[in-house]
């Protein structure tokens, strides 16, 4: 009786087995890497806005404080977007005829808010409160990046659950003195209190910050 398999069968089986292993390994790697890619997380994507507002110009160039526009950040869960009146504080006086600002003027004259597109968002099942973070030493920059360098605003951090937990598990290194919360491109220097001291000063550590109900309510 002739042999069922030719010697070539060994090669085929080996290739198939190695291929199967390769596919499994490849799928695992893809599964690991894909959700972390900036493409999936939309990191670095400038979003189309009704008016091409430049944080770089307003913050770095003119030195306007974050709170001038995001006025409720210290008191509320929402940092809030400014009403058109805030824009008009200045733009009723300067650049009054700029074509770029037509949408802002129309908004005021028609009493219709500008609909800004959201750059940073977390899912609805995440309870995020701005006021607690800024009053406990987390700077704007820690989550929003250096907006003073953004001609058009883009999402700077992944904002995955892992991103949140990395800090909630060890908040110390991300804390800064209250005076520096709204600073951009801030780095601790010799005068900055060490993390442990900042934690004590802000009374952080009495509660387990990784409890589910801290963020999911």
């Amino acid at each position, binding site marked *: 009786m002739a042999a069922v*398999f030719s010697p070539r069968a*060994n090669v085929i*089986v080996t290739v198939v087995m190695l291929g199967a292993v390769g596919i499994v390994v490849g799928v695992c790697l893809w599964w*690991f890497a894909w959700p972390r890619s900036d493409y999936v997380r939309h990191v670095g994507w400038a979003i189309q806005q009704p008016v091409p507002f430049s944080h770089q110009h307003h913050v770095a160039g003119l030195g306007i404080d974050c709170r001038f526009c995001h006025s409720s950040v210290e008191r509320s869960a929402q940092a809030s977007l400014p009403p058109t009146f805030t824009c008009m504080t200045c733009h009723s006086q300067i650049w009054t005829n700029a074509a770029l600002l037509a949408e802002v003027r129309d908004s005021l004259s028609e009493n219709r808010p500008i609909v800004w597109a959201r750059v940073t968002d977390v899912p609805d099942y995440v309870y995020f409160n701005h006021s607690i973070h800024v009053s406990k030493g987390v700077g704007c920059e820690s989550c929003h990046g250096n907006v003073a360098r953004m001609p058009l605003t883009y999402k700077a951090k*992944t904002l*995955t*659950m*892992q991103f949140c*937990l990395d800090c909630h598990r060890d908040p110390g290194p991300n804390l800064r003195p209250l005076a520096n919360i709204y600073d951009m491109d801030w780095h601790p220097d010799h005068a900055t209190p060490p993390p442990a001291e900042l934690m004590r000063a802000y009374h952080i550590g009495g509660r387990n910050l990784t409890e589910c109900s801290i963020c999911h309510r």
Partner: protein
Amino acid sequence: MSGPAVIAPVVAPGETAQSLTERICAVTLREGARPWTPLWWWAAFAVSLGLLGIGVIAVGWLFYAGLGIWGIDWPVVWGLDILNYVWWIAIASGGTFISALFFLLGVEWRTALNRLAESLTLCAALCAAIFPILHLGRPWFFYWLFPYPNTMGLWAQFRSPLVWDFFAILTYVLASILFWYFGLLPDLATLRDRAQGQGRRVFYGVLALGFRGSGRQWRHYRSVYAVMAALMAPLVVSVHSIVGMDFAGSAATGWHSTQFPPFFVFGAALSGFAVVLLAILPLRSLLGLHAYVTERHIDVLGRLFLTSSLCVGYAYVMDAFSTFYGPDEADRTMFLMRVFGLYAPVYWGTILLNIVFPQLLWWRSVRLTQPLVWLIGLGVLVGMWLERFQIIVTSLARTQLPSAWGHYTPTIWEWSLLFGTIGLFLTTFLLIVRLMPVVAMAEMRAMLRGPA
């Protein structure tokens, strides 16, 4: 026990390695037989497929409609889902006990039984493995139990027995598949060499993975098989201990007991041996295995069956004893409810089927009366199901807070899932019986040739 009666031989006299190989190969290959597949097989397969179809519908509707179609609710949050899971995984144990534990002990009656017993293990473990996934509210996230690097920065809760359970089941199922398949290799090679048609030779040839029976291959085969047996034997104990800890780790009445891990191992052994008897007794006639599965095997299985029944009886006694010896009033209330309350028939059914009827096996004449043994085995399978019902449902229905007491009635979708898995079990088992060698020929040949 054996008394003056002559102990039947493990293999009928006159059988040789040659006759054994021919006879077992003929069971699978059936060269020239008409019909090629026996009618009893088709009849059983049709019934199995029907049951499996019910299960497929039940799972499909479950995935579409969600867990609300089941009768589970507060306070009875675990129902037939977990019950069936525990029941099936316990049934799976029989094959591993016979195949791994008794391989290590080197007993001769194990060899004719191990292939069928291991196949039963495989099919039952498959049925068990789907329930933990189905009972999740969001089954598509079942892999969250696995500690993989994720963007949520979350890790499995290693302090929870449910996570240990995930790993125990995964390990057990994978190891069972490997052990079963690895043991098959020499027999698949035999079938490849004996099959007539080209299609069959390729089918068994591919599955045999190039096993040619060279000295080197045998040397590797024997050492790997022994190592796997040595791994499987503790694994079957650990998997059932951890199933017990799923319960014992919780503070529910009647669950928080240190005896649960061994109790679940005893229960597993009992239902495992029961299902092996249930399958072997009819298959012995249907496949013509009388020469290899002799009265000796049935006698031994009957004794093991009786022994594990006594172990389970001990666990029941200790369960009652520790409840009343212990300090917990809620435990005692729950236990009295269990014995005399709404679910009392379940409790007494458990006692009757698992403890009382198997006592008949003390008599050798009963052990060798096959229909009676078969009925006792069937009774034990029902009894073990009832035992899990009283453990899971009565405990949850009578928690520490009387204001939170409730009851549980399974819906048609839970029942259909149970019957669906019975269909899955029978379908896979029948396919294995039809396509794979039903007796481990290589090991039997080695035994018939005697020590080299």
